């Protein structure tokens, strides 16, 4: 399907090639030398906050390597694209880019020498950023430590690797210009809309994309994908049992944790880490905007829904009682042969696995441990329309970055076999969610396992 459509696009583009080529051609902007000392510290500071909102550091930093020096693999349905070096190194970074060239890259998706950039760089969002914000971002990046690190060529198949192809994409999905403010909304909401839609590019993950990788304009925040994780819907379709409020979104963005929703996991973890440098006011604005998409807007309804969800979650005992076992006995035979386990060994019941593997943290008893996670009944992945996110968490776990305080969940990717994980996830769904059972967890698991497991830091 994807390829058929792509082919059509190729044909369309091919037929109009002459005119299109002329349109798509961009001139090189001459190299420049912008000495770091020229920047006003106030502007640099503003740029730092905007870089945090924009999360530039994530895609432009390789794990364990220097910040902003590029190399992070961005997985897209069309291939892997590596974040580029955006330190001010003149040869391998953007040290020779003038502010004009930088602004053109953000607004039009064209690099200094005139090449079209892949839309994995979300210029369809950045295009809405104001010139002065881009100037501040530029000042911030130009005052970073220059790192000489060559960029890695993207691993994208033909014909998508023809850079000009990106131009065709832009024709369809790049809508330049500022977003007009909504006079019916508060100043904070409008500020949030600006940040979330431009530099914040929330929709890049949380809005579904069409076959060409463009965001579906009619499905804003209806849920998307990121690095093999499900980016849940933020609108009324949100699977969270308790409706998000601005206060909760703010807490989540500020601390990576919201009382009634749990904690940031997967690709949202580094986002939250980055947002530490964003200002409180900006985070509150984004929260106000994002929460305005959430289901229930009426406080009384929300209160009622919340109570219902909480009551349900708390009524779900994590420990399904077992019949008392007989006397503890053991006997031993010395003829076992070492070897790998057959993956389709019979799976014990999910409830049994849950108690032994999960309940020491996800348990329902009293005050211990105090750092125990939220009730699973409130968890978004447990209540999501498909099991991908929950499977991803069960496989990989959750790991704070080194030396940082933050929940640790061990991954069970190798400890449990596929039938065991399937049984466990099925049990969790039926025990803790009011949503219908997931139909084919085993197939989903195979798919999630095939999706290259993201490189997570061990706990």
């Amino acid at each position, binding site marked *: 399907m994807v390829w058929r459509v792509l082919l059509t696009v190729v044909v369309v583009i091919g037929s109009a090639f002459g005119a299109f080529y002329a349109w798509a051609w961009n001139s090189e902007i001459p190299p420049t030398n912008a000495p770091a000392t020229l920047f006003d510290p106030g502007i640099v500071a503003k740029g730092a906050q905007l870089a945090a909102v924009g999360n530039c550091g994530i895609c432009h930093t390789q794990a364990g390597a220097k910040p902003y020096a590029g190399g992070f693999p961005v997985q897209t349905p069309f291939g892997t694209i590596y974040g580029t070096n955006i330190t001010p190194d003149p040869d391998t970074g953007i040290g020779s880019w003038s502010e004009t060239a930088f602004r053109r890259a953000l607004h039009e998706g064209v690099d200094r020498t005139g090449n079209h950039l892949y839309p994995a760089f979300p210029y369809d969002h950045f295009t809405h950023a104001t010139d002065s914000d881009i100037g501040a971002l530029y000042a911030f990046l130009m005052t970073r430590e220059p790192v000489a690190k060559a960029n890695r060529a993207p691993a994208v198949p033909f014909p998508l690797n023809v850079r000009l192809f990106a131009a065709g994409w832009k024709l369809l999905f790049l809508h330049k210009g500022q977003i007009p403010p909504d006079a019916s909304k508060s100043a904070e909401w409008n500020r949030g809309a600006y940040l979330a839609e431009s530099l914040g590019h929330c929709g890049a993950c949380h809005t579904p994309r069409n076959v060409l990788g463009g965001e579906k304009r009619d499905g804003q925040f209806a849920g998307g994908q990121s690095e093999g994780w499900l980016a849940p819907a933020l609108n009324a379709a949100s699977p969270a049992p308790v409706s998000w409020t601005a206060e909760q979104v703010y807490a989540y963005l500020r601390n990576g944790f919201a009382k009634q929703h749990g904690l940031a996991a997967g690709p949202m973890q580094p986002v939250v880490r980055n947002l530490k440098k964003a200002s409180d006011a900006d985070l509150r604005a984004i929260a106000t905007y994002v929460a305005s998409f959430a289901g229930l807007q009426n406080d009384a309804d929300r209160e009622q829904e919340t109570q219902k969800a909480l009551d349900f979650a708390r009524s779900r005992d994590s420990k399904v009682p077992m019949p008392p076992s007989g006397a503890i006995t053991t006997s031993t035979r010395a003829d076992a042969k070492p070897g790998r386990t057959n993956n389709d060994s019979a*799976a014990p019941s999910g409830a049994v696995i849950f108690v032994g593997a999960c309940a020491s943290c996800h348990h329902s008893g009293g005050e211990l441990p105090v750092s125990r996670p939220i009730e699973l009944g409130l968890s978004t992945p447990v209540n999501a329309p498909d099991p991908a996110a929950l499977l991803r968490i069960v496989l990989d776990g959750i790991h704070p970055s080194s030396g940082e305080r933050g929940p640790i969940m061990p991954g069970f990717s190798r400890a449990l076999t596929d039938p065991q994980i399937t049984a466990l996830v099925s049990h969790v769904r039926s025990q803790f969610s009011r949503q219908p059972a997931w139909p084919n967890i085993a197939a989903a698991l195979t798919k999630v396992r095939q999706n290259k497991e993201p490189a997570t830091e061990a706990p």
Partner: protein
Amino acid sequence: MTVLNVNGQQHRIDVDPRTPLLYVLRNELKLNAAKFGCGLGQCGACTVLVDHEPVFSCILPISVLEGRYIRTVEGLGSEGRPGPVQSAFIEEQAAQCGYCIPGMMMRAQGLLEHNASPSDAQIRDAMAPNLCRCGTQMRILRAVRRAAKAMMADAGTIQETAK
């Protein structure tokens, strides 16, 4: 009744199938090496190998282990005949209180079975799930490097003899 294959021996165990492996190893099978450290999968003191993969035995119910191949430090060697990883740890005197070390050795064993000559960074990453409060980390790293060398050398000798 759960049948567990531990260090090459079959054990028929009649305890609640939800019981995490750690407690069965320690109490029913009287194997001392795997230790209780947190019971939460945060410290690695309980690490054992299941099908060649290091796992936290404190959060793995025995019900999921039927027919799988479990190994503990007791399966690596004995005081009289320590295995290569144990010898390397002894030679490097890589222990202070020693409480974390069995878990460390199992994680190292798992690493070396997958990657015979890991880089320093790979060793550190692989060992990351395991905590040591005595600060024996530098010696543990040395011991893992030494074990890798010894195992490579052993493998070399075996190949030579096979020729």
